């Protein structure tokens, strides 16, 4: 395999993994506060359609992404109202949000189907991008790819080192105890849910504005569900989420390269298509199979409503 080919595969892997990183890291923060929002697919869909429509009208990808963030957060706000204020079941509400979001996006996006916006050129970072292999893979990407890394870094720092992260985790572990020491549990949970929605919307926007770039119904194609699965299989640890997302992207891209190469591999194409899902889950389950670590890392109050008595 030539260096050029490896570079091409790695480059495409980073692109394919980026939306998953965004959505999964948002969901991780949300779940760390004890809020299980299964609506990622729906929030990504409305984010994608809003981002595309605004980018189409304004001609600006940045405006589009802002709209995507807002749309995702807005849908998350509805989830918050129902589960935090009205204390409805989070699983059922999350599923409803997923279904509602996908349908709403299809409805709103109807007039924009098959419209095209100009592709945004990548943002090449001088000097660094000249390094062989790494330069092409890491420093000739879309601006949002870099932003994803920044967001990821901030979330890692926030969860591990900041007081805010501690508060968030306390709420997720024991809302009653957090409440007792004077933390506004539901406010923290709202913020976490909104962040999750915003990231899902941004991930959706990446797909419709940077990746395809077009809007079509069903274009999210299950990526929201994969992101949810990543968080669980990565046992709520950010670095494993990152690994899982790029692993998924890597296998996805590699199977395409295998198909079109002259290698004689006699495997049904359907199986190759399923490979990214299988590989990601198997690897994450293997590295995270320590039951005690799962118990330690999974937020104790995940999915449970809280009422301050």
């Amino acid at each position: 395999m030539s260096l050029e080919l490896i570079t091409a595969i790695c480059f495409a892997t980073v692109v394919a993994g980026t939306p998953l990183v965004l959505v999964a890291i948002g969901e991780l923060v949300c779940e760390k506060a004890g809020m299980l929002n299964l609506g990622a697919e729906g929030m990504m869909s409305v984010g994608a359609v809003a981002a595309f429509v605004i980018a189409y009208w304004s001609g600006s990808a940045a405006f589009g992404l802002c709209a995507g963030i807002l749309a995702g957060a807005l849908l998350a706000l509805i989830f918050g109202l129902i589960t935090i204020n009205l204390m409805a079941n989070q699983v059922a509400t999350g599923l409803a949000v997923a279904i509602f979001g996908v349908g709403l996006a299809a409805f709103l996006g109807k007039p924009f189907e098959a419209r095209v916006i100009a592709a945004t050129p990548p943002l090449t970072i001088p000097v660094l991008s000249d390094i062989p292999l790494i330069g092409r893979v890491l420093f000739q990407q879309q601006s949002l790819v870099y932003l994803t890394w920044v967001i990821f870094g901030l979330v890692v720092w926030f969860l591990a080192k900041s007081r805010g992260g501690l508060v968030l985790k306390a709420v997720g572990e024991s809302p009653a105890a957090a409440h007792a020491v004077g933390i506004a549990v539901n406010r923290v949970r709202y913020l976490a849910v909104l962040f999750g929605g915003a990231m899902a919307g941004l991930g959706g926007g990446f797909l419709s504005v940077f990746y395809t770039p077009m809007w079509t119904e069903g274009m999210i194609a299950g990526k929201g569900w994969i992101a949810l699965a990543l968080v669980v299989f990565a046992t709520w640890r950010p670095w494993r989420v990152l690994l899982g997302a790029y692993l998924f992207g890597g296998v996805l891209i590699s199977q395409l390269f295998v198909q079109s190469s002259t290698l004689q591999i006699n495997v049904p194409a359907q199986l190759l298509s399923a490979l990214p899902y299988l590989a990601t889950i198997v690897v994450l389950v293997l590295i995270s199979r320590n039951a005690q670590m799962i118990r330690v890392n999974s937020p104790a109050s995940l999915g449970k409503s809280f009422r301050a008595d």
Partner: protein
Amino acid sequence: MTNRRQFIQASVSGSAILGLGLAGCSKSDDKKSGSAIKAGFVYVSPIGDAGWTYQHDLGRLEMEKSMAGKVTTSFVEKVAEGADAERVIREMASSGNKIVFATSFGYMNYVEKVAKDFPKVVFMHATGYKSGENFGNYNARFYEGRYLTGVIAGKMTKSNILGYVAAFPIPEVLQGINAFTLGARSVNPKVDVRVIWVNSWYDPGKEREAAMTLIAQKADVVTHHTDSTAAVQAAEEKGVYACGYHSDMSKYGAKAHLTATTHHWGAYYTKIAQEVIGGTWKSGTIWGGMKDGFIKLAPINASVPQPVKDQVAKIETDIKAGTFHPFSGSVKDQSGKERLGAGKTMSDEDLGKMDYYVQGVTSKLPKS
């Protein structure tokens, strides 16, 4: 999944419920103009502005225009190839439509069922293999256009690698890949065609990834047998060439778009309507090609040199005159086995059973 048109799979079963609601969004141009007959169209995907369904809708509009006052039409888009299709087809037949056009492979068995219950209604099904008393079927020789795009691609490539994004390994798709390869090899024997299967008729993200992968492997002309314009857009972005499919996709890639194999159903739909009105319609099967106007090439890009255009025009004339068949012998498959003897042309039966790659395709055909 070897459905002719796969319903865009909703990721949650629940969204299919919403889909049912949307499938009801039909538009009717019913003007109740005296003796006009009604014709109904069932579409598998949204009309959009390029692709399989879009071309059928152009056909509907053309028929409506040329039969003004005699035919009124209505359509239902995004009808899944399942029980929902039967409901829609039955509804169309029972609401006074004299002709029902069902434009996707997966509707076949439902059309067959409903046709028996409505003997006075004419049912026309696209791309299937069944027919009946009041149930005809029609299809197009897409491979004729593919051969010509192959000739252009073979002349325009510098890397001698051509890329092909394909949906499912069914005979219709394999005919396209093989015709494209034979066309390219007829003018450039060094050409090597690479295929990626995306296992979906319509998934812009995956189609794009596949096209990008082919381009990364040095393919400098890509084409696709999937429904979106993603491959053409990817080619435009990467500065390579593309051949569109279904529709003229030049507005998605002004520089990239060399030409496209386009589908034209309008004249045929008009003919069927005239026959039904005149009482001369008979059930049957038609597999129309360039000669019948079912298949045309989109305008060829200005970057293609005139001699190539002339050569393509010559072959096109020969195909129309019946003096040239894209699958004429000898045709060898990848393993070197002769599938068609020298001097022979392939029978429709053999075409309909195609399950191999010809020499020149370097990818391996997946087992299905």
